[in-house]
């Protein structure tokens, strides 16, 4: 027996922390860390629902694997963009827009 309040609460906390991280960071790479936390909140919710049985086709676990893969692809492209920005501007500070 496991009570689902724990996973649900942790998912809510991780989503809130990720939102804070996205909004409170100026370094573009650190903004990505916030995005990762939000994605982990979503996957934790999927696994928690999968653990409570009754999901057909093992959907909770399979969709978590898919989300992890998509997150890897997203980080790959996002870091390429960050590197291109760094090469053109000399820094990755998001709060100082320049032409």
């Amino acid at each position, binding site marked *: *027996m496991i009570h*689902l309040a724990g996973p649900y609460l942790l998912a809510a906390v991780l989503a809130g922390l990720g939102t804070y991280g996205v909004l409170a960071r100026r370094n573009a790479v650190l903004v990505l860390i916030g995005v990762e936390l939000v994605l982990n909140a979503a*996957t934790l919710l999927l696994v928690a629902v999968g*653990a409570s*049985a009754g999901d057909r086709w093992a959907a909770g676990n399979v969709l978590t694997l898919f989300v992890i893969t998509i997150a890897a692809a997203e980080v790959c*492209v996002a870091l390429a963009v960050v*590197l291109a920005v760094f090469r053109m501007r000399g820094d990755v500070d998001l709060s100082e827009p320049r032409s």
Partner: protein
Amino acid sequence: MTGLDLAFAAVGAIAAASGLLAVTTRHVVHAALWLVVCLGSVAGCYLVLGAELVALVQVLVYVGAVVVLVLFALMLTRAPIGPRAEISTSPLHRTLAAVLGAGVTALLASVLLPLAHPVDRHETDTSVLSRELFGTWVWPFEVLSLLLLVALVAALAVSRVGTSREEGA
């Protein structure tokens, strides 16, 4: 309160604390390293919830690949060593961000917690999971491999933006 609940509370507390440190620390590299602890303990949460394969993939892909990519990006963008205040926004922005983050947490918790109830943990067997993955889900799986290829090519193309301009191509 069963043993599983206690185990989940332990790893969940580590995940929440290290996640908080990852978004608040003033050391750029420490943020990435706290992210390792956070993602690793989320993998522990998956183990407690009975999803072994997902926990292993979390460790392999997230801790192994994504965090290494983040660390590489930090190094390539000449991340400063030591505590720096300028990696975060101003105190006013941070206060607003904290209010919004707390609001997200409160909203999600108020929606989800009334739905929570004790359940018999349903362990997903790896053989069952792989049969579903390569049976029911095989086409999404193939499309996902295509997505990875496109992301790889796009990353190469985007990272060449600055260089091709200098060459005048």
